[in-house]
């Protein structure tokens, strides 16, 4: 129980919530505002993280150059995925996006010389070089920590992640209030009507997909920096489903609902580690991971059935019929 009171633990939970906020914000743009059923969001996260890591460790780039390129790689990935697939029906599109993220995971697992293979980024370079991207980051983080006068690295990371998250949330919120955002919402509402008003529906969907992918790329970068090393299996479909749960929980079509959903998710996910009472005491602690995921699945089900607009969503504007 002492861990429960540990600030370091809760700072970690906060960081994870921040990363998920950015990831899910991308999904909100794609589905909540453009109506795209993207189930491959974790694939774009992987693109961002791996591009940055490979450029720094293998090509010797500065991390501050590699990071934006990671985001760009994710955006390009989104555009490339969308070009042939956005004209497909929604259910086909969803399946193809899952296939896409799985292909990325497969390639990352098998192209060992490029990505370090299934061992992950630890195997990216020779011994000692793999920590380069994290080394540069740690230096930056320590610098910020001194500036802020914090005593813990966890707290510093928390501030950095959430500053970026809040900036991105604000930018997205502003973007959606522009005439561009208005067209996007029209496309979500009725794409044929939007087309008959002269709007190039395909172009808007592609932009939403690419922007959402870019946000996932940013989430990938923070994942890489927070966890130091990562492997392809870190980017499994489960993370996409978590993001969807957060999206549904917070509410569709509301930018500021995303951090609320992510916060609740972080709490559930982390808090259930400490359920030291029956029925949870009946199972071994490593099996509690399964219970946690069952709870998450049940939450998705309950939300879909009983409260599809989520905690803060607008029932009138909700995309789920």
């Amino acid at each position, binding site marked *: 129980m002492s861990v429960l009171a540990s600030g370091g633990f809760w700072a970690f939970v906060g960081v994870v919530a921040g990363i998920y906020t950015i990831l899910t914000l991308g999904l909100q743009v794609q589905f909540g505002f453009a109506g795209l059923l993207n189930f491959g969001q974790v694939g774009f996260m992987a693109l961002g993280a791996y591009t940055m890591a490979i450029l720094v460790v293998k090509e010797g780039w500065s991390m501050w150059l590699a990071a934006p390129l990671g985001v760009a790689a994710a955006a390009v990935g989104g555009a490339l995925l969308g070009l042939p697939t956005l004209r*497909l029906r929604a259910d086909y599109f969803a399946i193809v996006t899952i296939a896409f993220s799985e292909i990325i995971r497969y390639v990352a697992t098998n192209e060992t010389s490029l990505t370090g293979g299934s061992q992950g980024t630890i195997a990216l370079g020779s011994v000692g070089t793999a920590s380069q991207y994290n080394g540069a980051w740690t230096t930056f983080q320590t610098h910020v920590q001194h500036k802020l006068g914090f005593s813990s690295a966890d707290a510093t990371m928390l501030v950095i992640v959430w500053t970026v998250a809040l900036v991105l949330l604000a930018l997205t919120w502003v973007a959606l209030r522009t005439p561009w955002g208005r067209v996007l919402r029209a496309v979500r509402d009725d794409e044929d009507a939007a087309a008959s008003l002269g709007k190039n529906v395909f172009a808007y969907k592609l932009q939403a997909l690419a922007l959402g992918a870019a946000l996932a790329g940013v989430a990938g970068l923070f994942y890489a920096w927070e966890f130091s090393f990562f492997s392809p299996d870190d980017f499994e*479909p489960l993370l996409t489903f978590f993001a969807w749960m957060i999206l549904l929980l917070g509410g569709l079509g509301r930018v500021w609902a995303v951090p609320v959903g992510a916060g609740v998710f972080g709490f559930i996910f982390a808090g259930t580690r400490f359920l030291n009472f029956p029925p949870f005491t009946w199972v071994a602690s490593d099996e509690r991971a399964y219970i946690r995921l*069952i709870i*998450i699945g049940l939450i998705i089900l309950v939300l879909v059935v009983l409260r599809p607009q989520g905690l803060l969503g607008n029932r009138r504007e909700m995309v789920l019929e």
Partner: protein
Amino acid sequence: MFLQLVANGLVTGSIYAIAAVGVSLVYGILRLVNFAYGDFMAFGALIAYGVNGPLHQSMIVAAIAGMAATAALSLFLDAVLWQPLRARRAGFMSLFLASIGLALVLRQSLLLAAGSAPRSYAVNPYRVFVLGSVRLSEAQVIAIATAAGTIVLVGLFLTLTTWGRVLRAMADDRALAAVSGISVGNATRMAWLVSGLLAGLAGVLAALVEYSFDPNFGFQLLLPVFAAVVLGGIGSAYGALLGGLALGLAQEVSTWSGFAGGVNPVYKPVVAFAVLALALLVRPQGFLGHAAVR
């Protein structure tokens, strides 16, 4: 070598085919893409294990138990989850998301109950049948024989029986079911029943062929099965059969060295996705589906 790949492809393909028909039947009636289908298969495989291993029953008894259990699960979930959603007139996206939540709950429950350790059925993995240049394990022979028989039975069911015709017709037009005198509710339950039976069987056969399996293997099968359904034409049960066989063959044969060295076998799942993507681009309605009126 090539013939061996064709044989392997037929084994995999016939399993895909059976599973794909199950997915297609439910989609045809309910417009529901059942994301939990892979976990239905894993469920069937595990129940069969329970009967075959600890209870020492033959594979046939175990398979039947697996199929029955999966069918029961399928019907139970319709009553408890899908029916209430239909009552709320849930749209396609709600159903899709609900099936994802369901998949999560199912798979994690299986892991909780059975653990993640790999298991095997009590069959001899070393017994081989040789047919010319083709070698098939006992499991593969059982799988292909059973699958072939099932495909024929399913084909007959769909073509000759009233139920089969109703299910096919409803994929085209729900109002038609009313004409034949069978209620939509009963047709729905029949679809879930058959879908569950097929899922159970496909799961057992897949586990048999893979030899060692754990509760996670259902998801790995899910995407190729979806690909098979789409390839064959979503909403067409016959198409699903064709799509499954075609996909299995394509996956295995693509590794043939005659194709400029062939695809690296680790990338076989990627071949399935590539075939799917290509099919969607070239002929979105699949082999036997209806042209989308766009």
